[in-house]
């Protein structure tokens, strides 16, 4: 299964971002192969609708779960119309976040 983590940096030791829509990077992690890639979030400077576009972006990556500190109301509404599960109140590093899901 592919999961996405909203992160402040492009590596596994980066901090999880408190805000989903405007996080600096999405770390896409495959729980089977344990491979990951970082996608720079193009929506950080959007005037509006950053969360909305971030959802469709990770959806195209085939993500089934998204982890972040918090989600904006528009991102939440969009996520609830997708098959992606929300995991909120996640803090610490990306590694910690992955453990949370895989343990």
């Amino acid at each position, binding site marked *: 299964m592919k999961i996405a983590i909203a992160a402040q940096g492009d590596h596994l030791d980066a901090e999880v971002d408190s805000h989903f829509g405007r996080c600096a990077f999405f770390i896409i992690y495959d729980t089977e192969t344990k491979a990951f890639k970082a996608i720079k979030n193009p929506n950080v400077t959007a005037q509006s609708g950053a969360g*909305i576009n971030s959802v*469709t972006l990770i959806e195209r990556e085939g993500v089934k779960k998204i982890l972040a500190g918090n989600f904006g109301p528009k991102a939440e509404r*969009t996520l609830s119309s*997708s*098959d992606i599960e929300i995991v909120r109140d996640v803090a610490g590093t990306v590694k910690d976040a992955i453990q949370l899901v895989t343990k």
Partner: protein
Amino acid sequence: MIVSIASGKGGTGKTMVAVSFALSLIGVVPKEIQLLDCDVEEPNARLFIQSLDAQKKTVTVPVPVIDASLCNLCGRCAEVCVYNAIAVTQKKALVFPELCKSCGACSYLCPQKAITEKEKKVGSVEEAKGSGIALVSGKLEIGEIDAVSVIKAVKKRVDPQKINVIDSPPGTSCPVLETLQESDFCILVTEPTPFGLNDLKLAVETLRKLQIPFGVIINRCDLGSDCVEAYCEQESISVLLKIPFKREIANAYSRGIPFVEVAPEYRKRFQTVFQNIVKELP
């Protein structure tokens, strides 16, 4: 005739000047006076005008509605929407009306003709009659961003047969431009401080770009330096009036009393300002 009252910086006394200027003209010029409050994010002029029967009309803008039975989730609408007001996930197309600027691109370009439009409230326009003056004020709904549509609705009430005094929003961005376009003259209200001067310069640039004639009123002219006057002289901008700080004026303002009522000598001064403006117009 349209005279708008603007200021680069907020809180310089723009509304106070607009209200007092309009009230001073009642009965003196052979035309009806109308005050239009285009500061729709924070409309305050009506706090100073005792008005009778007010009529309120809703301002709406069209926003898209997607018919799920016709939509095939192709994503074209989300792709063309530069305001990110539509999301198309693998299951559903969603509209976020609060982000929509009503350009109509999505409904026009939808290959399935699945998008229609419905009206959404973004604000209201209130028309009221005071003694000798008509007041039109626009109000933006809280959380909405489309101030320009509300301003347009207020400006529809401009009556060329009347003297229209417009209270503009502060600043120099799009709502201000929308407000000031078509004005015959603009009064810039400023204060003689570094903040006031900095923002006055921006406002002057704006008016020069719009090619609208303008003059300056310096409020609280004794609380600061001569920096604004020196600038006006250097730029050949006429200083129409200087208003010194008076605690009575500040206090009357705080209670919603127009300052020409506590300082009636200013009625004459505003009338002179008006005459000077008329002289400057082609």
